[in-house]
């Protein structure tokens, strides 16, 4: 089954989409795709089939997001905790992932046509090596399909460094927790918990979630702004303290005038930003090298 389900929206869906698009739209939506096993149980299917249906639903959801002009989607596919499941289920999930990433490489042109860029977040070292290699190939193959946006230092250091924080996080199947998914990045996101099981997710469920986002948009923007200002003032305060300490340390006991203090502060800020930039460049280089090495291993193996 393909990564991108082809097809257009029907007339009612198109009208609804256009109405929603008149308001503020989330630029990055995150999904916790919960409910595959419950769906399988209810429909007397094998668990593995539930997961396969879940993947099909993902492909369909990506198509809806494309029609709604949502440029970025992150999904919670598998967690470290999920390794506790039975070996059969874990193997089944790994096989599904293998199949899908290999399919992704076959569909590379189609993905380029739709401008799809794949990023995989997390500690890939815990996955089987061949799957790591397939992922590395997929990530490198779709790397240049769009542009990057960078934010604060901690955000940069996380696995999700190239993505802006999600505007909207949707969790299906009725559970009301985050289960360790993107905790930092969703601190100011709109959280929507829906009781529908993931394989039964519909276009209207997505519209409902987006509507919730739109209703909360102003309050959340205000909160984000407040938070940003607060962070900026904390940073300035910290910079001032460090500068004052340095001046005291290097000075010869003479009181410094405002002009000297201001100059020293600006100089300190410039040096700090340069250090941060060097650190981030080194980190990015390390990450790119990780994926390149995996690909080289795969081709020589």
């Amino acid at each position, binding site marked *: 089954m393909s990564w991108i389900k082809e097809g257009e929206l029907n007339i009612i869906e198109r009208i609804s989409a256009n*109405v929603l698009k008149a308001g503020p739209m989330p630029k990055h939506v995150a999904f916790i795709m919960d409910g595959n096993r419950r769906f399988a149980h209810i429909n007397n299917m094998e668990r593995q089939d539930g997961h396969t249906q879940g993947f099909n639903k993902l492909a369909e959801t990506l198509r809806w997001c494309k029609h709604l002009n949502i440029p970025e989607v992150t999904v919670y596919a598998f967690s470290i905790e999920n390794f506790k499941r039975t070996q059969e289920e874990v193997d089944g999930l790994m096989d599904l992932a293998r199949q899908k990433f290999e399919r992704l490489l076959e569909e590379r042109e189609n993905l380029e046509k739709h401008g799809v860029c794949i990023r995989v977040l997390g500690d890939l070292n815990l996955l089987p090596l061949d799957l790591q290699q397939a992922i590395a190939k997929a990530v490198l193959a779709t790397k240049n399909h769009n542009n990057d946006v960078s934010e604060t230092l901690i955000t940069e250091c996380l696995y999700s460094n190239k993505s802006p924080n999600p505007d909207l996080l949707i969790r299906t199947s009725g559970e009301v927790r985050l289960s360790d998914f993107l905790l930092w990045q969703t*601190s100011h996101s709109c959280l929507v918990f829906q009781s529908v099981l993931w394989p039964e997710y519909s276009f209207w469920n997505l519209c409902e979630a987006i509507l919730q986002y739109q209703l909360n948009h102003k*309050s959340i923007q205000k909160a984000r702004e407040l938070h940003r200002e607060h962070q900026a003032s904390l940073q300035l305060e910290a910079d001032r303290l460090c500068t004052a300490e340095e001046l005291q340390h290097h000075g010869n006991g003479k009181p410094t005038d405002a002009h000297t203090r201001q100059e020293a502060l600006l100089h300190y800020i410039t040096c700090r930003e340069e250090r941060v930039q060097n650190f981030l460049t080194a980190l990015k280089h390390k990450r790119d090298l990780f994926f390149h090495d995996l690909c080289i291993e795969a081709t020589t193996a």
Partner: protein
Amino acid sequence: MVMLYGLLWRLLLLLVHVNRALVSWLRVRLQSWKSRLWERAMASLLLPLALAGFPEQQKKLNRTPGADDNPSHANGGPSPRLRYISDGMSLQKLPVHIGFLVTEEEPSYTDIANLVVWCMAVGISYISVYDNHDIFQKNHSRLLKEIERQQRHLMGGDGHPYNVEFLSNGSDKCHNGKKKSKVTFVFFVLFFPGAKTIPDPELVVKFGPVDSTLGFLPWHIRLTEFIFVPSHRDVSYKDLLGALKLYSSCQQRVGQ
């Protein structure tokens, strides 16, 4: 065409707001209508029995929805402290650490103080309070005074008051109390270096219309259940108990 869609969108939002306002108005009306009806029914049924002197029926009269909402020493029933303790013990599981996230613009100190007192009475050891503007953090002494006042009001002169220890950002003191009835009241902001000995909140009750955690303890809420209550203003014990019951019935698979 674009303008038409814009108008339709505004209409849609208006309809949703009207719908929400109607639902919350109906909920309040229905509650007060139900409780008045119930009180009248009980009064008319039980007054003759009460006059005839049936002690069991007296207890039933005491247990009207009004009394359930906010038990206090004024009821003249069993000690409210015992009532709270038995409520806490009747739940399958009780959070060790509960968080109250207030997304409403103007917080009410009395209502938050009530919540804190009820939580302490029911047996919860750690209580966090958070609002987006850090109002409680900045005015924590006012909140603590309010908590003491409400403790006296809700518990009466019954027993010794709870020992509340207050922690805030930067503090690394956390005594695991050897004293009885020890409760730690915590204010958190994003980074809390001393929080190593404090357990993560198992339950966060969110008040207000904003569907976001607004920066509340991002690193500590990985397995936290969220329960939503429309407003913290005039929140009742029944609301809190309802949230605790919901929490006690939820199952976490933790990846399995």
